[in-house]
């Protein structure tokens, strides 16, 4: 038997790419079903209060309407999750909350009739105003529950205040990031069917197993009676990890019309209140250093918001204790519970917002110390993980910075702001570091079945949210089985397969791949020891769990990266263009260079969008996001995206997992906004600490003759 060519490392096209570009890959809502009905949600028009009366008469009388769901007739659910207690009472806890649903023969009738449902409210005052550190405010904040147990929410080492007081150079800056909305191209959609004794749910999700458990629990069903299918997902970015009211409402509707599939798609406007968001943050970073730039103290704190129905916290200060050597360090994280929808996971939750602040502050420190910002970071490179005091399983931040500097053409760089001009445009360059932890989520199993024909069937209830997981995971399986990739048929996206953790935390390949690896090892071993290396006539099947990582307590495991950006700022209008971004990442072994590059490229593009464009604008009077469509919520358009170069450092880390991968989904966005903000400072001399960096922040005041930054 010849050793097959390793599949890992091959830039394979996605197996489903051709189907997708030809429109043949059915997404959840597109799955052909017989005699569907359509559901449209009714949303609250107040933020806090109580529904005092409901009049469905007009809606019910509308020809084609089959039923109107409200809290008065909805099935009672069993769940502790406030986001799932849909239509369980007359209480309204945020504006836009789903308070009803109309089931009709067509989507147009359902939508029209939803507008005819009359709700009377008893309104109470609401508070949706997240504020930074203001007197008397701290007492109303909470320290959130830990997000990942290995990263304590607050950390403290040494005496930060004393070290800051005696430091030769100090930076003390406040930063803010806005409310970001995911805006996956495919909105949240469901086709729910009650089959008599259970549900079949076709939906757009990051985790079929999690949805199955949530729906089964809420409707008091055995999980085996809930089948969740999600073969293709058109973007998710964290917004499709947790089940929410939309799924519950669709399932409730399905109970009312047994045998008829209920089709439910959120409108774009509805996704702004129904699908979570990255919580806005107020952050403060204090740095103390010697005049040589060596840090003596790092302090980072963050305030963000959660809802009153379910706590969700982004751990925005999580990355800080992993970054730089300093004997005195403190991180603190608070949440304010407001009358808003519950925030959720969004690409690099925590790192994306937190590293904007930390890496902007590092740039400010470099200027204060008159040091090149790359040199500053190199001088503060730790020998071991500053918080865990463990060696890093691998750490190539310096290599990323140096390789990036070489490729970007960082040198020679006059650090003086406003030193470079081209016509009416000021030019600047900026750099920032990136990091993301290597995580392994529990709860996955993989089954591998080999037949006498030598073909391997790999089953796992993972999902491919558009990242190319189906392809990359098949590459992992082929190498684990030591067979040609053509012999492997990997299936995912169905809860009837062995359970799997959700697609998130850049942990998909690690978590699912480790289970597949384990199953493959056991299968190969059993083939050899029990069957003399020959597949028995009726085949052989093995199921294995994701094993624990034996090195978890011996090493700190993180990816690192370096982000570079060149910006141009129009001297008269403040318009900002980013002609170049360049990222170098160290994320372990790359399974599929083509799909991995797309992940990093997408992350960097979103970093651009985060830096310059995105912002959900909250109307404090009403409590809702005003700019709730893609005409008003700006994401970077093609014309905004310049040349983006993606590179990676070869890394071979034997401690992270059998594949030696670290995950590539999140890190591309981390640090990108800081690199751009730092470049904007270099171009203009104006330090923007509040994202997004819009042109009005760079316009001069109304002084005659003044120009940008002048």
């Amino acid at each position, binding site marked *: 038997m010849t050793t097959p060519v390793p599949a890992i490392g091959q830039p394979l096209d996605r197996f489903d790419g051709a189907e997708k570009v030809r429109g043949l890959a059915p997404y959840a809502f597109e799955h052909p079903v017989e005699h569907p009905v359509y559901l449209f949600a009714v949303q609250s028009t107040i933020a806090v209060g109580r529904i005092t009366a409901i009049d469905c008469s007009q809606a019910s009388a509308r020809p084609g309407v089959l039923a109107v769901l409200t809290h008065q007739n909805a099935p009672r659910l069993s769940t502790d999750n406030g986001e799932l207690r849909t239509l369980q009472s007359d209480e309204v806890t945020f504006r836009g909350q789903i308070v009803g649903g109309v089931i009709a023969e067509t989507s*147009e009738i359902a939508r029209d009739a939803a507008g005819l449902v009359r709700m009377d409210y008893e309104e109470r005052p609401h508070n949706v105003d997240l504020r930074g550190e203001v007197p008397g405010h701290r007492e109303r904040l909470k320290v959130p529950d830990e997000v990942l147990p290995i990263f304590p929410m607050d950390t403290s080492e040494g005496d930060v205040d004393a070290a800051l007081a005696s430091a030769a150079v100090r930076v003390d800056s406040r930063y803010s990031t806005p409310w970001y909305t995911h805006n996956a191209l495919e909105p949240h959609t469901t086709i729910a069917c009650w089959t008599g004794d259970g549900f079949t749910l076709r939906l757009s999700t990051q985790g079929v197993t999690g949805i199955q458990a949530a729906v089964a629990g809420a409707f008091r069903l055995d999980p085996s009676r809930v089948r969740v299918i999600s073969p293709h997902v058109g973007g998710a970015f964290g917004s499709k990890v947790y089940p929410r009211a939309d799924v519950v409402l669709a399932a409730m509707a399905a109970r009312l019309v047994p045998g008829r599939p209920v089709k439910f798609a959120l409108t774009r406007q509805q996704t702004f209140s129904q699908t979570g968001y990255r919580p806005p943050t107020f952050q403060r970073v204090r740095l103390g250093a010697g005049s040589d730039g060596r840090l003596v103290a790092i302090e980072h704190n963050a305030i963000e918001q959660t809802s009153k129905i379910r706590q969700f916290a982004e751990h925005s200060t999580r990355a800080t204790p992993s970054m730089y050597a300093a004997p005195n360090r403190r991180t603190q994280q608070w949440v304010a519970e407001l009358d808003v929808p519950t925030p959720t996971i969004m690409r690099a939750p925590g790192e994306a917002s937190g590293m904007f602040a930390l890496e902007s502050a590092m740039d400010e420190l470099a200027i204060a110390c008159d040091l090149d910002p790359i040199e500053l970071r190199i001088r503060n490179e730790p020998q071991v993980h500053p918080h865990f005091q463990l060696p890093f399983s691998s750490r190539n931040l310096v290599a990323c910075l140096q390789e990036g500097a070489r490729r970007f053409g960082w040198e020679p760089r006059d650090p003086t702001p406003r030193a470079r001009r081209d016509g009416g445009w000021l030019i600047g360059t900026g750099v920032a570091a990136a990091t993301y932890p290597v995580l392994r989520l529990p709860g996955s199993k993989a089954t591998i079945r080999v037949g006498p024909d030598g073909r391997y069937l790999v089953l796992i209830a993972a999902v491919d949210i558009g990242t190319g997981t189906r392809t990359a995971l098949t590459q992992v399986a082929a190498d684990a089985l030591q067979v040609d990739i053509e012999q492997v048929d990997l299936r995912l996206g169905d809860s009837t397969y062995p359970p799997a953790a959700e697609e998130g935390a850049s942990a998909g390949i690690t978590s699912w791949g480790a289970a597949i690896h384990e199953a493959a090892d056991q299968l190969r071993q059993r083939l050899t020891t029990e069957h003399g290396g020959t597949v028995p006539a009726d085949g052989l099947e093995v199921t294995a769990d994701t094993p624990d990582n034996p090195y978890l307590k011996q090493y700190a495991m993180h990816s690192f990266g370096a982000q570079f950006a060149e910006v141009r700022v129009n001297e008269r209008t403040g318009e900002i263009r980013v002609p170049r971004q360049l990222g170098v990442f160290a994320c372990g072994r790359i399974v599929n260079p083509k799909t991995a590059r797309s992940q990093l490229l997408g992350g960097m593009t979103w970093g651009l969008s985060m830096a310059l464009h995105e912002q959900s604008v909250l109307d404090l009077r009403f409590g809702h996001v005003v700019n709730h469509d893609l005409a008003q919520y700006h994401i970077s358009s093609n014309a905004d995206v310049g040349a983006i170069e993606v590179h990676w450092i070869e890394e071979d880390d034997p401690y992270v997992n059998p594949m030696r991968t670290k995950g590539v989904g999140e890190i591309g966005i981390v640090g990108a906004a800081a690199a751009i903000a730092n470049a904007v400072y270099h171009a203009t001399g104006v330090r923007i600490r509040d994202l997004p960096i819009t042109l009005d922040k760079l*316009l001069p005041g109304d002084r005659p003759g003044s120009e940008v930054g002048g």
Partner: protein
Amino acid sequence: MRTFRYERSSSVSGAVALLAEAPHGAFLGGGTNLVDLMKLGVAQPDLLVDVRRLVSDRVEELPGGGVRIGAGTPNSECAAHPLVRQRYPMVSQALLSGASGQLRNLATTAGNLLQRTRCPYFQDITTACNKREPGTGCSAIEGHHRDLAILGTSPECVATHPSDLAVALAALDATVRTHGPGGERVISMTELHRLPGPEPQRDTVLQHGELITAIDLPPAPFATRSHFRKVRDRASYAFALVAVAAAIDLADGVVRDVRIALGGVAHKPWRAYRAEELLRGGPADEERFRQAAEAELADARPMPGNAFKVPLARNTLVATLLDLAGGPR
């Protein structure tokens, strides 16, 4: 979306007659704005009269050097037409700076002018809006108004007109030919759109059932030196924060004649007569350009969230004039 009737007619007068009998009906062109508003429940016509095949979809030369644009001409075709590109470059630039390629293929020239003014609260039926429901109040004045008007506002409405094309046409003294229940008439582009005043529900002076059949561009030899400059929050596919349409006639460093209109600043395309007046006969230098811009913006009444538009409009106008004065295009 409400149920509605859909009708076609074989003639312009037939279409006009159909709508005259339907006080809540509307003409349907490309539908790129109307259909959106219908989905949102903002527009609820009970009859749509499709006029796409009734009016000309061509660009033609007029005797004397002008150009006539058929009301049904898709935005993309109008932008690409050699007569438009050669004689009125800023019209082509304005069209290409708006929307996306797909929308420009569908949107008609007249429909572009008849987009409803924009405001986030107008588009959200759960919030008060004097334009959508007269007398309910304006949510924008005390709310999110970053994109909204600084000139010609009223206590009832601060919305802005979104059309880039209208700005270029207003600068060029274009006229709009209409056919309504009362017959045909010609309306100056600068008179087509209204300031909100106490009646913000009316965007234009058109009567119900009055159909735009063509837009005429008068001869303007110096418009070959013209430019449309749009400043927005991203490089493409966004409404103007501020736009400037300008054409200039220069001789020996002196402004012989000039046409300027501003977009993104008012409920209608804002013809900058005051700036034009100050510039005519004066030196083509930055100092004079700045004085003209400041004179035009002297009456600006920005709100806290859009005060930046005043210096932005000033700077953009100065920059555009300097570009035009810098040399022949």
